[in-house]
């Protein structure tokens, strides 16, 4: 007896059923039976090229990180069974926080158990109901959820539009509370890159603070891989950098780095930091090893940039609609959901896995076929993906 508990699902159920009816397989239930390498996995019993894993540097399959994890699990066990503020802080957690501070040239780091929790935990520790958050309209769900958890007033500004932020900050100039602006380095759905330097100028003019989520740009952009802030030479203007280990570093977890000394107080009021188990030691060890890879192998970033350029140019030349930004996230925009579902299924049947992203999780209400490029992709693998995109697009009449 559920007493109407699931009545509210009626509309979701209808949408889900029509999606499943229109698709030979559930787009949200793809199973990678096992990875053969960073770029190839077994899906439905077939070798499939992976172009939708966010594994930008291929480090989920790093031998160095894997060996570090094995050695640490052997010597320290597989879990901490506790919160960071109780029994869940091992020396490895402190070591990783120190290492990340060094990598970012910042004074302090807080490590969280996931990237999602890093946004929830940082935002909810920084602002409360008396404060105002200014969010880019295309912000990730974890930023919106962090905003909700904080209780702060939330004002959206137009995506990647510093002038629109300027206008909205000006309207709140007499508000008594603190004002925090949040943007992302690379936007996860479209691959758009933030004009961060301009955002820094705007927030400085209004005496607001700035947090940047570099989840998709850490390890990817900037001479040393510190992300968009490094690329655009404006790191000094960023108060808090948040990110994840589950993209370029290939593991799981999240972080916030800052020069603000109040971080130890944040640890005492960030519920997503306090009320969850800390990262297992083998994950910390693998993340430390992956950080070494990022620092010692700048050629990974060069290869990633080259591969991103190849896929972006290939899809553009076919006549498909993508963002003008060249980043490892390259999304093909389609016009209708049925078209996107058919396209996505055909790609998978031809041996190419990408992400199907549907409204309202996409900007401007159109569906996306979201690709993520890896340093580990070979030119031949990218060429094959472009060929398959072209074949399917022509068959479906998306291009002529």
């Amino acid at each position, binding site marked *: 007896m559920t007493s109407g508990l699931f009545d509210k699902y009626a509309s979701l159920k209808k949408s889900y059923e029509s999606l499943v009816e229109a698709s030979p397989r559930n787009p949200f239930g793809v199973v990678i039976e096992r990875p053969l390498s960073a770029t190839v996995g077994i899906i439905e019993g077939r070798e499939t090229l992976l172009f939708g894993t966010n594994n930008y540097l291929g480090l989920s399959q790093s031998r160095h990180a894997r060996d570090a994890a094995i050695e640490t699990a052997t010597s320290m066990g597989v879990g901490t069974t506790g919160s960071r503020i109780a029994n869940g802080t091992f020396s490895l957690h402190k070591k990783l926080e120190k290492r990340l501070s060094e990598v970012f040239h910042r004074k302090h780091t807080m490590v969280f158990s996931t990237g999602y929790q890093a946004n929830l935990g940082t935002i909810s520790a920084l602002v409360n109901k008396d404060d105002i958050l200014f969010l880019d*309209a295309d912000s990730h769900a974890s930023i919106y959820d962090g905003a909700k958890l904080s209780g702060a007033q939330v004002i959206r500004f137009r995506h990647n539009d510093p002038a629109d932020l300027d206008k909205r900050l000006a309207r709140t100039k007499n508000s008594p509370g603190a004002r925090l602006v949040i943007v992302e380095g690379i936007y996860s759905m479209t691959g758009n890159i933030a004009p961060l330097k301009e955002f820094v100028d705007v927030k400085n003019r209004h005496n607001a603070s700035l947090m940047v989520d570099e989840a998709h740009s850490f390890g990817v952009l900037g001479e040393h891989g510190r992300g968009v802030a490094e690329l655009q030479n404006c790191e000094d203007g960023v108060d808090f950098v948040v990110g994840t280990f589950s993209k370029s570093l290939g593991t799981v977890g999240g972080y916030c780095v800052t020069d603000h000394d109040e971080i130890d107080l944040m640890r005492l009021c960030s519920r997503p930091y306090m009320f969850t188990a800390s990262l297992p030691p083998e994950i910390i060890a693998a993340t430390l090893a992956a950080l070494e890879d990022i620092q010692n192998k700048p050629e990974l970033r060069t290869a990633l940039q080259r591969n991103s350029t190849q896929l972006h140019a290939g899809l553009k030349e076919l006549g498909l609609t993508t963002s003008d930004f060249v980043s490892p996230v390259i999304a093909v925009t389609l016009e209708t959901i049925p078209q996107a579902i058919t396209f996505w299924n055909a790609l998978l049947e031809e041996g190419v896995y990408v992400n199907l992203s549907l409204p309202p999780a996409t900007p401007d209400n159109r569906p996306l076929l979201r690709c993520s490029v890896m340093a580990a992709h070979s030119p031949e693998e990218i060429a094959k993906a472009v060929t398959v995109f072209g074949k399917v697009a022509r068959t479906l009449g998306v291009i002529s």
Partner: protein
Amino acid sequence: MTDSIPNIADMIIEKLLANPKVPRNINADSRIVEDLAFDSLAVMNFVMEIEDTLDVSVPLDKLADIRTINDLASCLHDIKAEQA
């Protein structure tokens, strides 16, 4: 044009009717989600357009209580008065 609630409601209706997908028979009592078939993202994006016209910013939590065009007009009127 003054920023009275009826005037703001008229302006909202005029902007909505510029979208050919919006039903033609809407009025100030029309429900934004049910009658106009707007999802949450569409509501937030539409409010951004109105904000610029009135030079106000509407915090997202205020949108949770808005059901009709009149509710939105009333909310914008109050915020405009607060920001004056």
